[in-house]
């Protein structure tokens, strides 16, 4: 591994100052390290300075209020699924957090890190998009927000400007009669990168018979996780049933641009995108009907 310096700032301002540092080599943010340390070791990323953000309170907070849930960018998956209110509000995110790697990875890996790493197959991003999460960023020019669906700009690339840092993810508290689900397909039962994954969030009418709104997201089928607007539109206003769901599935299959690589073929991914989209929509509907 190349040599680098290490710093562990205690405040957000200090972190931003470190990240602005120019000179030979990039500063890189270290949260859980399960991506970065491996990438540095394999020479896939470079760093002259590693900035450990786990000692900054804003990055590590997890809190709920009536209208929102705030997840610090460095909060590990294990804390996500260990939080009773998270489990109650966002079962889809719990599904995501429980599937990234294994228990050992989940002790360290964070949703924020998974998002910033911007793999098209990332397991946290589809549910975050479906749930309308918003990224809170901080940088030399101050703070700004971006909806999660606009954060990934390409494979391994994100919308962070030089010196900027992802601080938090903010999710709206779930509405009544809403539900969400996440599912991924892997060849084994754990430890694999998704061949395809999908998340759906739906809001139903009070009698559970109609879709009021829906968001359907697929991953590992395009350069970034894909919010398939046409699929959501195919469901919105429609009676909950086979006809609407079939049209949503068709929309998903038409929207994806998958590749063939060592993890799967393009045809397989297109096929799976449809299978998973159906499964997550159906489960989201079940959850919406069961919710108060």
């Amino acid at each position, binding site marked *: 591994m190349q*040599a680098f310096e290490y710093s562990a700032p205690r405040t957000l301002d200090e972190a931003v100052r470190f990240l602005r540092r120019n000179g030979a080599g990039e500063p890189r943010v270290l949260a859980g*390290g*399960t991506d970065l340390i491996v990438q540095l070791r394999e020479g896939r990323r470079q760093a002259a300075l*590693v900035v450990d953000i786990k000692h900054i309170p804003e990055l590590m907070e997890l809190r709920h209020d009536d209208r929102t849930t705030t997840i610090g960018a460095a909060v*590990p998956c*294990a804390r996500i699924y260990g939080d009773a209110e998270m489990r109650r509000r966002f079962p889809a995110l719990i599904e995501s957090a429980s599937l990234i790697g294994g*228990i*050992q990875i989940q*002790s360290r890996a964070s949703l924020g890190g998974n998002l910033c790493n911007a793999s098209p197959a990332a397991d946290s991003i589809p549910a975050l998009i479906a749930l309308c999460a918003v990224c809170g960023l901080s940088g030399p020019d101050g703070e700004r927000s971006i909806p999660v669906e606009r954060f990934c700009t390409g494979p391994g690339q994100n919308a962070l400007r030089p010196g900027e840092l992802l601080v938090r993810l903010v999710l709206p508290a779930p509405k009544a009669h809403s539900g969400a689900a996440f599912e991924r397909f892997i060849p084994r*039962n754990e430890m694999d990168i998704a061949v395809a994954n999908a998340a759906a969030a739906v809001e139903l009418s009070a009698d559970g018979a109609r879709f009021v709104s829906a968001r359907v997201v697929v991953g590992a089928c395009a350069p970034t996780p894909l919010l398939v607007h046409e699929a959501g539109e195919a469901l919105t206003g429609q009676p909950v049933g086979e006809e609407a769901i079939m049209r949503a599935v068709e929309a998903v299959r038409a929207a994806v641009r998958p590749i063939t690589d060592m993890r799967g073929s393009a045809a397989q991914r297109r096929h799976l995108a449809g299978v998973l989209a159906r499964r997550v929509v159906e489960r989201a509907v079940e959850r919406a009907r069961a919710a108060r």
Partner: protein
Amino acid sequence: MTKAHLRFELNGEPTELLCEPRQSLLEVLRDELGLTGTKEGCNNGNCGACNVLFNGALVNACCVLAVEADGGSVTTVEGIAEGERLHPLQRAFLEEAALQCGICTPGFIVAAKALLDSEPDADEARVRHWLAGNLCRCTGYDKIVRAVLAAEAEMR
């Protein structure tokens, strides 16, 4: 390259050393501190042979920089037994013949201990799920799962 001064609790004992930021916790445990019980199998978080408890959580030591352990606590396989008294998991692994070559055994023992400490009633499915991050190539996992369940029964 300035070395970092690292102070942490290791298997209950205060420990300090100098290390480079690029050294992983795994490297420091094995190469600087001579605790070779924690193994390198893949060095990228996919096999669990390097499992340790870090601040109470089960982690892959290959994916933690040693400097991150400053001020924290680490438990390795060498810290599981109490002197001559083996932990019930260690005894169960021996009695159930849950090891063949034994290279993955330290990782499994640490991982299983983390499970039993947090979920003393885990069933077979939960045990398998928890241990999915620990690869074994010799046993086919059957006797490992039985050993963990046997230790769990004894600890109840």
